[in-house]
């Protein structure tokens, strides 16, 4: 029969519904847009990510690939249907196991797992992997998801809410977890004001092109529902931004020249039903394609045209660290090793494409969008839109993953422009292709390095030189160029050192921040060279690293005296695992011809926060007249857990249980600036500010009540009273106090800025006040006839100083290992060729090894309760440990990532040819 909308009747979560949407519409769109069920997520509209998984007649399908006409008479179940009065056992299990980080994949995971559990209530790991293989997660590394599903039938006990003073160290559930597992969390695409216009962008199809617009008015005039088209000429402010204002060079909309494929040149806004499927291919823009400079070598050529007029040699910036005399020490070394290494673009591949909405709140332009850095969005968007202080408010939507890319603005200036110009609310949701083509990437690198060691294996010298392809605009290129030379020695004593890194412009995608800012790339070549030295000198590879590990009192390559350096302890912790793995490899390989097993090790260190530059966080804490305790927590939680961890730190400093806290923000109108969620700085820097604010409020309360320093503070929200108890009880009647203009009767606001010393021309100084450390060991099997690598096990020892929340910290490590594994074995973004999640591969649930986490707690003298950062550290050692394991297994010495099967096989053949 011919189907019309009114004829489509279906059951959704047990309720009969009839639809107005066109029968050809994706079920996911109908659920989200027409039926008001945004718990079902759209990550790719291509069946590649599984975020949109729903159950139809109890079987999982991708709702993005299902025309709603096919649902006639069917029963559809979504995440909204899992919960009754309370969460289902599976949802509760996700919460208790810490299986949701950013939470964007959680609804898809829950639905796929529900289908499994209804057939197999007590599945094994293999069954879980098979059932969830079609849902991608970029945060968790899948371990905790597998545990949560396997154990949903026997729900593990809830970690009791920690009592006063016992929050730090507790495996408590994340405080913002309920909405993530319930499917009610609101991401950028999930919430918008009624009557919002929909915005889409016209983007350059060329890597480099000049362009001219034709008659836009004529194009627009025939199109009912198209409200407005804006180009660079409509931008009221300065049409250039950058995360580092001194390097502002990126236009919100390109003016006459597109410098990379995917760069926006115009935006179209109008009624959603018109704009959603509007054919933009006839938009009046005339392109004159120009020859692009795609590789740093070509861009650095003396004859190459400048991509930005003021940047000679297309070099954005170079960073350098020099100490001692590397050349002299190298020539005196007993063992030396050299290598070249290259890596490609790596895509963040968060499951949530960029999305957000904008509206006017009186005279204040308000933007609610995915971000890692609301105050930086405020700065960049205000600049582009020419808005004075107070005229813009940024409210971070829940972020469905970030990993560095959502530090830069994406659609914020664009939707801001539409609302500013039209006065109407609007929203924008990037397609997967658009997200991948237009947002930042990990810097491709071309590195050369050499290391020299004495007869005992003590490293005497290192030279490093790297070109980091920073793409068309500056973004975080300067940070990468500065961070890499500081870290390229690895966490090892290197008395003579010469390292240079350049950020080189090309017409490639903009390279920005991605978990580690260039350090993961540098670690690849450094750790390769350590294995070279071990091979030449006959040293045990782990032992070589142990004797070179930085220890307290040693000086880093920047001349900084190390304090609280826990790398030696991390390496020590691997020793028994290493010995066992070496034996295991030997016996396995004796019995196996084609499949060969190997073990590799690599380390990391990573300075937390900006490099030798200020980066303060400010935390406010207050008690209202009715006795409620509010924490203005401005550290954006993109899944890593700052909402929970910062509260844990603050709670212990104040001396009250975590469950007394109400969290405010982040929101630029409500929370002081806690800086950006990057550089592994939030637990340390914002944590320290929270610790100070908690301690300051405690002191105020104790002073006010004149009680002893160890008195117990008891908060009873709603009571209007604070009780302070030592040998007697004092009541503070906050209800009778005059609140300040922020509404608080008692409050504290504290700022913390890490004590650093800027680097001199040789990179000497104190770049970071706190470092975190780690060492990972990977066991891999290499199919030597096919070059396919299977990572079997990773043991990850990380020094966190003090583990604030072990469950969340494990999640960071498991997620970091997953991203490191992807980078090592499968991920390479090729502009114009892999802007989707089936040509660009990230690890699935079946690609992950068993991960054992070992926490080392060597307190840092500066960090809150001794804590250090972790977020980026977890990824850095994984890829080099895997490569070193491949080499141990089969001799393949890989110097290019990713180690795709054909490259591994070629390296095996090359090794065989030399034997």
């Amino acid at each position, binding site marked *: *029969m*011919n*189907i019309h909308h009114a004829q489509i009747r279906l059951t959704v979560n047990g309720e009969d519904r009839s639809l107005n949407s*066109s*029968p*050809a*519409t*994706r079920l996911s*769109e109908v659920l989200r847009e027409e039926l008001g069920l945004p718990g079902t997520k759209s990550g790719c509209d*291509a*069946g*590649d990510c*599984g975020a949109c998984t729903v159950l139809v007649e109890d*079987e*999982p*399908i*991708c709702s*993005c*690939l*299902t*025309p*709603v*006409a*096919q649902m*006639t008479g069917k029963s559809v179940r979504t995440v909204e249907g899992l919960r009754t009065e309370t969460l289902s056992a599976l949802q509760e299990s996700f919460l208790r196991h810490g299986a949701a980080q950013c939470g964007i994949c959680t609804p898809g995971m829950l639905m796929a797992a529900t*289908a499994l559990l209804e057939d197999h209530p007590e599945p094994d790991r293999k069954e879980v*992997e*098979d*059932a969830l*293989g*079609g*849902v*991608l997660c970029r945060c968790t590394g899948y371990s905790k998801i597998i545990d949560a599903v396997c154990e949903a039938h026997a729900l593990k006990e809830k970690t009791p809410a920690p009592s006063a003073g016992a929050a730090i160290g507790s495996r408590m559930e994340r405080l913002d977890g309920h909405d993530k597992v319930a499917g009610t969390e609101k991401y950028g695409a999930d919430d918008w004001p009624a009557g919002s216009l929909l915005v889409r962008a016209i983007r350059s199809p060329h890597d480099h092109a000049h362009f001219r617009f034709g008659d836009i008015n004529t194009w627009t005039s025939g199109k009912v529902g198209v409200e407005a088209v804006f180009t660079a000429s409509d931008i009221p402010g300065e049409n250039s931004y950058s995360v580092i204002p001194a390097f502002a060079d990126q236009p919100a909309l390109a003016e006459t020249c597109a410098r990379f494929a995917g760069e926006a040149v115009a935006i179209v806004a109008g009624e959603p039903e018109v704009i*959603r*499927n509007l054919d933009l291919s006839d938009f009046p823009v005339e392109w004159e394609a120009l020859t692009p400079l795609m590789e740093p070598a070509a861009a650095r050529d003396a004859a190459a045209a400048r991509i930005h007029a003021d940047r000679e040699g297309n070099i954005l910036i170079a960073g350098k660290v020099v100490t001692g005399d590397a050349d002299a020490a190298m020539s005196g070394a007993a063992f030396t090793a050299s290598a070249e290494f290259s890596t490609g673009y790596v895509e963040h591949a968060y499951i949530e494409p960029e999305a957000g909405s904008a509206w006017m709140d009186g005279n204040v332009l308000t933007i609610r969008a995915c971000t890692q850095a609301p105050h930086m969005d405020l700065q960049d968007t205000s600049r582009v839109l020419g808005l004075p202080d107070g005229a813009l408010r940024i409210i971070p939507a829940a972020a469905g993953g970030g990993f560095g890319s959502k530090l830069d603005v994406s659609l914020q200036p664009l939707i801001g422009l539409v609302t500013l110009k039209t006065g109407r609310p609007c929203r924008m949701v990037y397609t997967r*292709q658009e997200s991948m083509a237009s947002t930042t990437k990990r810097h491709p690198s071309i590195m050369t390095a050499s290391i020299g060691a004495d007869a005992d294996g003590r490293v005497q010298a290192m030279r490093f030189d790297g070109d980091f392809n920073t793409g068309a605009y500056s973004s975080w290129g300067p940070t990468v160029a500065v961070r890499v030379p500081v870290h390229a020695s690895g966490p090892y004593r290197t008395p003579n050192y010469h390292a240079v890194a350049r950020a080189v412009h090309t017409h490639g995608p903009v390279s920005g921040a991605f978990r580690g800012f260039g350090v993961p790339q540098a670690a690849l070549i450094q750790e390769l060279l350590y294995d070279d030295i071990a091979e030449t000198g006959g040293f045990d590879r782990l032992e070589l690293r142990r004797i070179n590990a930085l220890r307290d009192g040693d000086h880093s390559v920047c001349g900084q005296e190390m304090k609280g350096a826990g790398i030696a302890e991390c390496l020590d912790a691997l020793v028994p695992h290493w010995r066992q793995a070496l034996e295991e490899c030997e016996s396995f390989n004796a019995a196996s011809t084609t*499949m060969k097993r190997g073990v590799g090790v690599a380390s990391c260190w990573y300075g937390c926060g900006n490099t030798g530059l200020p980066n303060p966080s400010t935390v406010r804490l207050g008690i209202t007249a009715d006795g409620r305790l509010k924490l203005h927590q401005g550290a954006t939680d993109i899944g890593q857990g700052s909402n929970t961890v910062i509260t844990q730190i603050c709670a212990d400093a104040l001396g009250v249980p975590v469950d007394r806290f109400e969290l405010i923000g982040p929101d630029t109108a409500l929370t002081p600036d806690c800086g950006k969620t990057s550089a592994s700085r939030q637990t340390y820097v914002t944590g320290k500010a929270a610790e100070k604010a908690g301690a300051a409020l405690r002191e105020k309360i104790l002073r006010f009540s004149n009680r002893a320093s160890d008195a117990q503070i008891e908060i009873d929200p709603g009571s209007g009273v604070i009780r302070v108890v030592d040998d007697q009880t004092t009541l503070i009647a906050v209800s009778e106090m005059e609140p300040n203009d922020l509404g608080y009767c008692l409050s504290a606001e504290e700022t913390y800025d890490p004590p650093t010393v800027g680097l001199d021309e040789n990179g000497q100084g104190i770049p970071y006040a706190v470092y975190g450390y780690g060492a990972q060991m990977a066991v891999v099997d290499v199919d030597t*006839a*096919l*070059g*396919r690598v*299977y990572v079997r096990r990773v043991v990850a020892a990380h020094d966190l100083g003090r583990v604030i929340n072990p469950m969340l910290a494990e999640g960071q490590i498991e997620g970091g290992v997953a991203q490191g594994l992807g980078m090592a*074995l*499968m991920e*390479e973004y090729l502009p114009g*060729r*892999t802007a989707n999640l*089936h*040509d660009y*591969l990230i*690890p*699935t*649930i*079946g*690609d992950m090894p068993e991960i054992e986490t070992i926490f080392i707690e060597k307190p840092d003298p500066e960090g809150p309760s001794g804590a250090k950062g972790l977020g980026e550290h977890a990824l850095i050692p994984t890829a080099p440990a895997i490569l070193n394991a491949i080499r141990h297994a089969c001799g393949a010495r890989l110097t290019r990532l990713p180690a*795709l*099967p*054909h490259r591994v*096989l*070629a390296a095996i053949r090359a090794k065989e040819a030399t034997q």
Partner: protein
Amino acid sequence: MDYYRPDTTEDALSWLASHVGQARTIAAGCTDLLAATPNSGLSGPVLDLTGINEMRGIAEQPDAWRIGAATTWTDIIRHPLPPAFDALKLAAREVGSVQIQNAATIAGNLCNASPAADGAPCLLGLDASVELASVEGVRPLPLDAFILGPRRTALRPDEIVSAIVVPKTAARGVSTFLKLGARKYLVISIAMVSARLVIESGMVSDAAIAVGACSPVARRLDAVESRLRGTSVDAALASLATDALVAETLSPIDDVRADAAYRSHSAAELVRRAIAAITTPGREVAA
């Protein structure tokens, strides 16, 4: 929007006949169609075949197995079939994810004509034909004459694929399927191999070996098959499929997943492993 979802093949064919020469979308599982558009839905007019019961399911006939065009991969996995279909069932588990297998159809996989279609090598190895239906009647076409090249088939504008037919003469022996990709799930093949051997009295009496993702259209390896036929089954059997012999039939390309030389080599390695897996039961095989 003209969206037609008939109950019978006859109605579908009449609709199609009345739309010849017009842009229209023939839809079933939609896992390729909707993956290929950024729009909110299919563009019309749409002929949706998923309402036709007779087009879904597997039937045993005296001389053949008939698989309805709109049979999903999950249907195939769950339907009891002779061991000759093991390769097809293994391939079915490799089509995207469980979510995809629940919607995607066997004929859709063939009509999409991707060089990396998971179903194609297995069906070639089963000597399958497609049944093409129009208002004028039904015409069978051998599968290797149906898929002409990447995204190209012999389907006429007034036709749909109504079924896949596997003759019983080919539904013999034991088969397996190996797929090589850079990750475990949701992966497009670098190379894949379907192998079916009929072994009688310790000899290979028939062999059907096909390779996908290493040529514009999946190919049967005639040279390897003839080498295998009449050979006794022993440990050396697999080694008859040399790299050179396998490469004869293939024309692989370089792409983001692998280079051509690797594809050719890995196809041969997979062929050897598939043969070994069939002739050495209980052996675990990696790919």
